[in-house]
């Protein structure tokens, strides 16, 4: 039977004994068990290290002067550096090994664990400078970050409540229980915390609305649907620090007067579900969830609801419909969830990252929080940087950093030293930013001004080999597939916009398509029922604004400048393969091919109508497409 933590004192004791237990382990080996690293085989690595360090290993450790007391081999959540995974972190040395395989394990044990030596081969090597960074926090990727939401990710074992307690876990809850609800709401308001789920709405304000409702039953919901393709911060937090999310949810519950909370997690995150389930169970067993928490009147129940694969269920009314067991179709607002939410009761809904910020604000104070980020957007924001960038991964930085700092200082620049073309921020509902925005600060308001939005913080980087029209088409396809199909403008409008975009990338566009596209886009933006439809035209509108020429190239010149669109790829004759037989020239209906017998022929792309006759005619496969 676990000891019930039913008072502030016992919580402090539990924290101290957890710290003691952690300190007992002179060496801690943390193997990342996030989805990415697991895919790379990190669990096998963990097992191998476990086996290798079992028995009397600690007597063989020579580099710790006053003798090694214990070796802990633990799995952690995602470090955000998934592209380098599987990652192994070794404390107290602070080393981070990348791309570790089972074969590397004996060497790690012999050299690092026993002797404290660094294995340079496994350390992070900067792709352009070739410099080696063995220590985690010195890697440029981490060095420029400020981690609040991600604070414990990769550092603690998410399945061990003790480790969370040792890192001030549930202290904020304890503190809050000594205040009244209004005081808590006031703190969050004063901190200026804004929702990290996309809208950037003031969290304190939202809590106030729910608190104002005089109703017996209220709910809080943690939105872990994270549908934005290309973002995975919520996944990392739920997997890497599940108790933090639960604590945040409980504080929201206490502040708004709710005694039950749902964690809605998307279907694609089974590991997050597993971790959260374990965390809830552990917290319940410890008495941190349930009746009369920490000896107060506050009771709280946390429940998990798994999504089933629908982006639109990230929208709050759809999410609630889904919790109620229905099709996830949004409902008109008003009434707002704060008035009439889950089963008609006042409901507060917050994003995972928003909630993960709450305990820190409570513990460290409003001043501290406001010292980070900008005036209107205080605090930090996590970004998932993916696509054509050197260091793909998950980062957390103060609000207001510029795109340049993020992409180049932390992200390590564009992959393979190609040219930066654009970054899509905020996923399918966001917009694209271009080189001209590199020095713009990333915060809620600056982004809104240029027609983009921070969204959940997905940054998909595109180099100059990406076709922007194709990307716009891709997003439209996404929204069309994910539209719930309820309201006319979104359902039919995205369908027709997709059709037009498809036509353009297929080389069948006409100039009037652009006007039609804009015509539909504005109606869909203004007239749709929910955020999905209202933002669906954003990618089209921003790309049309910044890359108008590229659209025109597709439509008028029938060219795809990035060379991506299949239908617009040009034909050419590979001079190395061409034997000069003239067969192609003879079949070409427009005389686009000329040359002299026995010498490589030439194809005039301007004349070519892409009929493909030459391709089939050439006996040497010398006519190439692309």
């Amino acid at each position, binding site marked *: 039977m676990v000891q019930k933590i039913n008072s502030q004192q016992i919580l402090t004791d539990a924290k101290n004994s957890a710290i003691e237990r952690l300190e007992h382990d002179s060496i801690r080996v943390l193997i990342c068990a996030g989805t*990415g690293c697991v895919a790379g085989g990190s669990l096998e690595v963990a097992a191998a290290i476990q086996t290798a360090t079992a028995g009397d290993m600690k007597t063989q450790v020579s580099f710790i002067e006053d003798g090694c007391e214990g070796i802990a081999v633990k799995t952690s959540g995602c470090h955000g550096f998934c592209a380098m*995974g599987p990652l192994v972190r070794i404390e107290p040395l602070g080393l981070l090994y990348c791309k570790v395989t089972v074969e590397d394990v004996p060497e790690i044990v012999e050299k690092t664990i026993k002797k404290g030596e660094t294995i340079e081969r496994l350390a992070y090597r900067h792709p352009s400078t070739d410099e080696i960074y063995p220590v985690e926090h010195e890697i440029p990727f981490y060095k420029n970050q400020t981690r609040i939401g991600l604070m414990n990710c990769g550092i603690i074992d998410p399945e061990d409540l003790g480790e969370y307690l040792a890192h001030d876990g549930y202290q904020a809850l304890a503190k809050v229980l000594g205040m009244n609800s209004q005081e808590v709401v006031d703190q969050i308001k004063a901190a200026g915390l804004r929702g990290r789920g996309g809208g950037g709405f003031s969290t304190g304000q939202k809590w106030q609305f729910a608190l104002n409702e005089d109703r017996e039953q209220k709910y809080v919901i943690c939105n872990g649907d994270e549908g934005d*393709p290309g973002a*995975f911060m919520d996944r990392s937090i739920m997997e890497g620090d599940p108790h933090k999310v639960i604590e945040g949810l409980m504080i929201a519950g206490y502040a708004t007067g709710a005694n039950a909370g749902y964690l809605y997690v998307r279907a*694609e995150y089974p590991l997050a579900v597993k971790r959260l389930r374990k965390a809830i169970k552990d917290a319940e067993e410890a008495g941190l969830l349930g009746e009369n928490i920490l000896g107060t009147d506050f009771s709280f129940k946390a429940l998990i609801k*798994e999504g*089933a*694969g629908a982006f639109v269920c990230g929208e709050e009314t759809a999410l609630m419909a889904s919790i109620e067991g229905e099709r996830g179709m949004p409902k008109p607002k008003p009434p707002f969830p704060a008035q009439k939410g889950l089963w008609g009761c006042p409901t507060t809904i917050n994003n995972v990252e928003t909630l993960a910020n709450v305990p820190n604000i409570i513990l460290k104070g409003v001043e501290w929080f406001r010292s980070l980020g900008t005036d209107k957007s205080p605090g930090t924001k996590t970004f998932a940087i993916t696509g054509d960038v050197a260091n793909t991964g998950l980062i957390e930085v103060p609000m207001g950093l510029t795109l340049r700092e993020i992409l180049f200082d932390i992200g390590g620049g564009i992959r393979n030293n190609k040219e930066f073309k654009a970054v899509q921020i905020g996923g399918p509902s966001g917009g694209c930013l271009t080189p001209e925005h590199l020095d713009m600060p990333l915060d809620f308001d600056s982004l809104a001004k240029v027609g983009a939005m921070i969204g959940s913080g997905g940054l998909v980087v595109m180099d100059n080999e*990406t076709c922007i029209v194709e990307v716009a088409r891709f997003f439209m396809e996404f929204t069309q597939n994910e539209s719930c199909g309820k309201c006319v403008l979104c359902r039919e409008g995205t369908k027709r916009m997709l059709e037009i975009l498809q036509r353009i990338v297929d080389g069948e566009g006409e100039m009037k398509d652009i006007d039609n596209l804009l015509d539909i886009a504005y109606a869909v933006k203004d007239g749709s029922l929910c955020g999905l439809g209202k933002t669906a035209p954003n990618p089209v509108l921003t790309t049309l604004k910044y890359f108008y020429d590229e659209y025109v190239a597709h439509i008028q010149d029938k060219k795809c400048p990035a060379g991506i669109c299949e239908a617009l790829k040009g034909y050419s004759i590979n001079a190395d393969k061409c034997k000069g037989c003239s067969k192609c020239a003879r079949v070409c209906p427009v005389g686009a091919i000329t040359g002299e017998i026995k010498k490589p022929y030439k194809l005039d792309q301007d004349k070519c109508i892409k009929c493909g006759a030459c391709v089939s005619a050439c006996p040497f496969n010398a006519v190439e497409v692309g």
Partner: protein
Amino acid sequence: MAVAISASQRKFERVNEIIQKHNGKKSALIAILQEIQEEYRYLPEEILTYVATAMDLSPATVFGVATFYAQFSLEPKGKYIIKVCDGTACHVRGSGPLYKSIRKKVGLQDGKFTTEDMNFTVETVSCLGACGLAPVVTINEKVYGQMTPEGIEIIIEKLMGKEDNQ
């Protein structure tokens, strides 16, 4: 060895257990369907009708829910379920060509997602949250990151080889 037992009407015992576990609550419909799909690998029509009756819902409503969420399948799937992530990160890193080459490799006809021999089901999914490893493919829950058309072909060949050896 085979023992013949007479085929009685299905009693939907497992389904009943699942429904009972959730107290037949309407709000648990999605969870119930998820568990049923885990049990049967898809959602057979009879079972959905049964679930509707047992939970006092209209079959059309249950059908509506089952067809709304991407996770649910109303048709049996192949032995290997290959999911190609087509989230943004994976898309810009080439998930499109990857998907095409997989379909070609397993010999899928246009408009079909499961091979005739019920061996492979190929589908796209939206972001798996492993974008750092884009493009990502999963085969029966195992995640493969940074995949290339060549790489996945080798994996599929291995799976096919396993088939032929039997």
